[in-house]
């Protein structure tokens, strides 16, 4: 099973993944295969991180995503991963990706429905 691992601490919200995907899939205005969500900036007031800023970007994979099956078959990377300017996306077997999660920074594993 394939997935995309996101190290979202470092996502800059640059939109490269979104546009790369839109162009690959030919998606019209308003449709996305991957879409960045944003939280913040907010100054944290409670807990051990109080006083720090939280400003996170998070790429979310939609139903339009086919994990770039056609590209993968040719030996290429998924468009979003290939163009991620922040080096915060990785594609691979889910079990390999899980091994990269080290608890030292923030990760999320995206595993869309696949055939």
């Amino acid at each position, binding site marked *: 099973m394939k997935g995309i691992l996101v190290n979202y601490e470092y996502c800059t919200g640059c939109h490269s993944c979104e546009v790369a995907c839109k162009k690959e899939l030919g998606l019209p205005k*308003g449709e996305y295969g991957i879409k960045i969500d944003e939280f913040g900036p907010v100054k944290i007031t409670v807990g051990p991180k109080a006083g720090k800023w939280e*400003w996170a970007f998070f790429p979310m994979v939609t139903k339009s995503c086919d994990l770039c099956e056609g590209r993968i078959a040719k030996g290429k990377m998924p468009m979003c991963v290939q163009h991620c300017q922040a080096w915060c996306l990785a594609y691979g077997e889910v079990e390999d990706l899980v091994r990269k999660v080290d608890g030292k920074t923030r990760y999320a594993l995206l595993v869309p429905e696949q055939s």
Partner: protein
Amino acid sequence: MLFNYDEFLESIDREAYHEGEWRWEEDGYEVTRTYPYSAPGCHNSCGLLYYTKDGKLERVEGDPLDPFAGGKLCMRCLDLPEVVNHPERIKYPMKRVGERGENKWERITWDEAGEIIKAELAKLDAQGYGRESIFVGSGTGRNVIWQVPLIGVALGTPNVGPLNLTGQSCYAPRVCGTAAPMGDYPIVDASMTSPDRYANVEWRKTDILVVWGNEPLKSNADGYIGHWLLPAIQMGTKIISVDPVLTWWGARAEYWLPVRPGTDCAMALAWLNVIISEDLYDHEFVDCWCAYFEELAEHVKQFTPEWAAEICGVPEEDIVGAARLYANASPGAIQWGLAYDTQVASMELTLAASDIMAICGDIDVPGGAVLVHNSFEINAGYALTDMYLPNADKKLTIRDLGYEGFPFMGSPDPDAVNIAMEAGKPYPIKMLWTQSSNALSCMSFAAPRTYETVKNAIDFCVYADPFMTPSMVAFADLVLPVAMTTERNSARTWWEPVRAMKKVTSFYEAKSDEEIICWLGNLLSPEIFKRWPTAEDLIEDYLRTGLAARGEDGEIVKAVFVAALDDDDAGLNERKDSEDERTLFRASEEGIALFDDLVQNSCGHRYWDWNGTYRKYEKGLLRPDGKVGFNTISGRIELVPPTYRVWGIDPLPTHSENIQSQKWFNDPEFRKEYPFYCVNGARSYEFFHSEHRQLETMREFHPDPLVKINPETAKEYGLKDGDWIWIENPDGRFKQRVKIFPGVSKWCVSAEHGWWFPEQPAEEPYLFGTFDSNPNNITHVMETGSGGVGAPRKNVCCKIYKVQEGDTMPGEQITRLGGFRDYVAGEM
């Protein structure tokens, strides 16, 4: 962390990405591996793969095998097919048939365009004006910078530069402000000078990165990709952010220092004070490689953190903490940006920050601030007019403003040009040629005034651009269609590596900038331009000699060499050996052009070892005489540079502020009327300055101009997200939509620049709505810092209030009602 460069390189399926090939067939497409470089604009040039079919660009993707960007294209290059195939592009040369501002045009041929230009030049000559009465303007950082001075050469004018960029307030102040103390320009080492990139064994991450006065992720300015720094951040680089507005960096910083806009120099001076008084500097480096340290140490004693805290509005302990953190780094580096140029203490700030890096030993070391030259020392640029024109001494400079210092900028002084345009002193400007610049929407300070001046005082305006812009509708008499990046052969040597742009498509009658130069030059000045009958000849000569001037016998007589400071001949040197020195860059095959060799045999790029060498000062690589040391008179980094004195600038830096800012700080009444600083020019991922506004994809992400305001300000003024507000001061007003943002202080608003709305009517009073949201309605000209350099743009003061139905739009006010305010021609 996910960043692992070795793993990345290993993971690339090299067959799938056709390693080593420059062109192949794939699924019915012709694929070309090359580099784009404007139009559309950007300061960079990232390796990509063009997919074309039947002569049309269908799709684009990044080239993972390109060391410059690793295939990581930004959204703008990913959207190249939309822009190069856009239905609103200019297809043919056109002449104006209605009045200026009516947007009425008639298609003509290039030959007819040439005849019109010749007739206008004859008229200019007959009226007794010198050719210096022509001004040639271009936009920032695009692939016109080395080319456009040749338009000046063809027309016979040395006045080639940015239109109305008062105080030279973009990049040049930092280039000159470091050339004086260290003889070269430092940029933060993100491994970009080596083809091995992050796998280069010599490279190491920056320990403490100061992101100061810019958002490099969005601006990618000055030939530098902001995202290059992300691997270092993942590897543990710590951040200090100096910016009135919270950025991605500030939110992740050890210290975010939200300075009062335009007080950065006070901050830098206080850092020097802390670093020297607490003995945190690099003694060995200072002893061996710096000069005038005692003078600097004595001078900065007065600039305590307590003093700076009051001026900057930042807690004293944060200033001290940040300075200590930086000084203890091994190494640190300062990623500085445009804010350095858009304040009156520009030259002083640059010097102070340069001195911080110098005394901490961060210069030209791995992970520090590395000294860079144009690749293979190919330096064609503004100095070309000085090389080729007999009237180069007529160039408008700070001397025309009454300054006595040596005019140290290569391009003409924009304020002197402004006075010439407005008041005809020392001579009038009667003709304007603009190559890829939409100054009204973008860089022109006091935009309403530029509108009035150019429209009324300039007899003949030529505009060359891929799209009809607001500036073109307002001013142009003749319009020339410019080829976009997929439609041109070209090359660049701005930093590393040297890169070739390979043409893959054509667009109607559009010509590339190089083709326009060869066409115009051979029409008007064949004695100079016969060397370059075609664009390919020009590009080849650029790569081979840097467009060096040749004598009758073909020998090189003048070339643009390193911008040596002891050279008072505007950067020109005798350089008969220049071709030999470039043996590194000689074609690898006999008989093949350098350009073709680059494109076909070298994947479009080649790295020059010089830039990839660390500690060049220890190796005798910086000075023309080959001795160790820096390229300064003393051979050391001159912390208190005597060169500043020659330029008429105090070499002991002090803090100063523009008039409005002083009033805001000292006069409660003024502050009541104008409670906010307007921090202008916030960048977006979607746009490069005024470009990309006609693209549906970009506007989907970013439909309208946004002004960030603090939540408390929103509450006080009863504003919510999306409300249109006026931002106003005595110079005028403009409107943008509110974005409530806790990362901007209560005394700042942060507005975007470059807006126009291609979907709105072109003709006056609309001009595509460019005045309506233009922050340059509230900036002004002719208030500059020492040496005529640095102007207040990001720290003008303002008030805000809601837009009401029936309000007069700025377009109407400016084009129909005489503007916002009166002024005396040639004065502030």
